[in-house]
């Protein structure tokens, strides 16, 4: 028995070394390629639908009856918010797990495949009623609007598929820890652990919500508790947002320093940021309900604090990133107070895209802090400002980081190389995307402040003067949207070119090392059980009081409505 264990241990060590030298195994590569392909097809489709909306909001395009604005918007949200983000995150982190943990365990790979097909199946189920105009309920599907039950069953499969991947990741990390006692989880896998912990715990509330909706949508139960459903949704909805953000942050801390030829920021502080983001995230969801009835002002005030607290680790990140840039640039001979920036590789898309993504997070994060604050939220809630905000955070900070990752991750898993031409194309794409997003998101912020609502097809409100005065701003949505569509086409071309046609060769998985004189990271950072307990305590503090109040003092429930 002992020899067998020792032998299997040796095989594992051998596999880990082989993995580092020879690159990712074909089976692990196929998994990530499949996930990335779905992600970029989703952005192609979702981008086209986005352009349709931009043109409609600008008053330039009336959508046909068989594909109305709200169908398009529901599909756009689902494709980009759920499909793109989930498939990219899982594809990227599974490649990271494979690279840093010495390959995926066969059973974990199988779980990821089962998860893949469950999500695809769930997505197809959800899309059919959307196309049939039986589920124009937006990606938030607030009851008592009721979609076809098939839509919700589709969502269940998507969640189950995500859980498969989360548990797969936990099993792989646990197995590595057992084989490497006393060692720290490699940093990228540490981020992956945090992301999958959040994916699992964050999607629990929405799973509960959907399980209460299904019998109601079928008509087996007459009414539903609207506020409970809404609250459970946002416990998930905002966590999801932060999951992609944490994914992007992992690349900022771990990948980008390597690409610019530098070293990582303090390992301990990096891990503290991950732990803090994991613990504090789920509680942030409540700021979506700041102007809801039925929640008292003291509870809302506590939630403002819980939401703003998430800003702190992000501000730690802001410092860390610029410190790494400066340190690296100075080592290369950069001089002056800010003159060192010339030494950064601006012509390298793998740096340029995530750099602009980070820079975009400065106004995006500031806007986030401002709009989470009680009274200021009241000014912008459900206006176009919010749409501008999440196109800045997700469309720029997160998605541009994903784009930057794709220029090395796709060649890495395809055993090909990034050519200078595609790098140049990537730089052009980054510039087009930046201009498009700045124009669109800027106009959205502004017109939102003036009062233009989100999730509303083009309307002059019976030629109301105020509504008509928004039109010039809304026109920029069409200009920005068109540029973004060009950006999507270039990006999708680059991804599939790198996957199937680029010259063969070896591409490195760029994981930066810590500084040579770095102090060892304390062991306590590895206590994931404790972090999860802390997270659950915070979630309890945030949600027990309002949820119990909504349930115990519930008004009579609402029957299902189909209002479209």
């Amino acid at each position, binding site marked *: 028995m002992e020899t067998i264990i020792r032998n299997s241990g040796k095989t594992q060590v051998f596999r880990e070394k082989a993995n580092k030298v020879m690159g990712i195994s074909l089976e692990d590569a196929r998994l990530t390629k499949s996930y990335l392909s779905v992600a970029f097809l989703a952005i192609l489709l979702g981008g086209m639908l986005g352009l349709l909306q931009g043109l409609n909001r600008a008053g330039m395009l009336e959508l046909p009856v068989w594909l109305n604005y709200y169908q398009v918007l529901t599909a756009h949200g689902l494709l980009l918010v759920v499909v793109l983000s989930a498939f990219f995150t899982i594809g990227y982190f599974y490649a990271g797990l494979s690279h840093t943990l010495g390959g995926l365990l066969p059973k974990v790979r199988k779980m990821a495949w089962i998860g893949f097909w469950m999500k695809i199946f769930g997505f197809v189920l959800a899309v059919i009623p959307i196309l049939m105009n039986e589920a124009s309920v937006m990606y938030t599907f607030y009851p008592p609007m009721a979609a076809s039950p098939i839509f919700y069953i589709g969502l269940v499969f998507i969640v189950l598929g995500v859980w498969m991947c989360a548990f797969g990741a936990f099993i792989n990390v646990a197995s590595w820890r057992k084989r490497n006692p006393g060692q720290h989880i490699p940093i990228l896998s540490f981020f992956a652990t945090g992301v999958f912990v959040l994916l699992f715990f964050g999607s629990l509330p929405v799973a509960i919500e959907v399980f209460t909706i299904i019998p109601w949508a079928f008509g087996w139960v007459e009414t539903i508790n609207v506020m409970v459903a809404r609250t459970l949704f946002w416990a998930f909805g905002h966590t999801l947002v932060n999951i992609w953000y944490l994914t992007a942050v992992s690349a900022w801390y771990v990948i980008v320093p390597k690409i610019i030829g530098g070293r990582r920021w303090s390992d301990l502080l990096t891990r503290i940021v991950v732990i803090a983001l994991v613990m504090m995230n789920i509680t942030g969801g409540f700021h979506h309900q700041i102007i809801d009835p039925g929640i008292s*002002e003291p509870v809302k005030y506590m939630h403002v604090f819980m939401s703003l607290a998430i*800003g702190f680790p992000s501000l730690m990140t802001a410092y860390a990133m610029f410190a790494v840039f400066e340190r690296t640039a100075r080592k290369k001979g950069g001089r002056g107070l800010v003159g060192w920036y010339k030494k950064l590789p601006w012509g390298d898309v793998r740096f340029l895209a995530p750099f602009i993504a980070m820079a975009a997070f400065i106004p995006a994060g500031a806007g986030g802090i401002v709009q989470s604050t009680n009274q200021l939220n009241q000014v912008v809630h459900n206006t176009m400002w919010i749409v501008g905000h999440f196109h800045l955070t997700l469309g720029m900070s997160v998605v541009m980081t994903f784009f930057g990752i794709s220029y090395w991750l796709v060649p890495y898993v395809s055993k090909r190389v990034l050519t200078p031409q595609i790098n140049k194309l990537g730089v052009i794409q980054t510039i087009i995307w930046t201009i498009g997003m700045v124009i669109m998101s800027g106009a959205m912020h502004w017109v939102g402040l003036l009062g233009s609502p989100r999730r509303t097809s083009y309307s002059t409100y019976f030629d109301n003067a105020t509504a008509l005065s928004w039109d010039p701003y809304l026109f920029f949505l069409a200009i920005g949207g068109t540029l973004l569509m060009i950006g999507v086409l270039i990006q999708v071309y680059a991804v599939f070119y790198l996957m199937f046609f680029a010259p063969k060769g070896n591409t490195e998985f760029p994981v930066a090392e810590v500084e040579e004189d770095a102090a060892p990271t304390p062991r306590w950072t590895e206590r994931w059980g404790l972090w999860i307990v802390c997270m659950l305590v915070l979630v309890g503090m945030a949600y027990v009081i309002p949820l119990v109040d909504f349930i115990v003092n519930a008004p009579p429930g609402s029957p299902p409505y189909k209002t479209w």
Partner: protein
Amino acid sequence: MMHRSEKIWLTLSFGMIIGFMLITGYQTFALEMGPPSHGERIDPQKVDETAPFDQPGIKQIGENEYEVVMTLQVFSFTPSEIEVPAGSTVHFTLTSKDVVHGFQVADTNLNAMVVPGYVQKITQKFDKPGEYLVLCNEYCGAGHQMMSTTITVK
């Protein structure tokens, strides 16, 4: 372990968040500028039979002070086309007869979610004369983009 400049940066960051909280707290609890948070419940299927929504409308309750009892339903506001004199303070009492709606008045800070089963309250002083656009800012169905009315301040 930490650089001095990082300590300064993080202290400022922490101070900024606390600053936001102090100002928000002061405005919410001392100046009563908190977000609309009314807690009263109502049977969403019996709105028409429940006071005060059995008689939606506008009522003067004091000098320059009005109460508007309003129901929101797909895709309209009842009552619609409200008129008040300039300088009036208007207290809105709102509920939904069907799905979730939003009550937003452009060029003011009036913005509240109106959820079936709950009574929502929000107050605004209208100083400047003009026609204010009232619109639903929560997607509520096929005619959501038509759900609007006006408040005229004379």
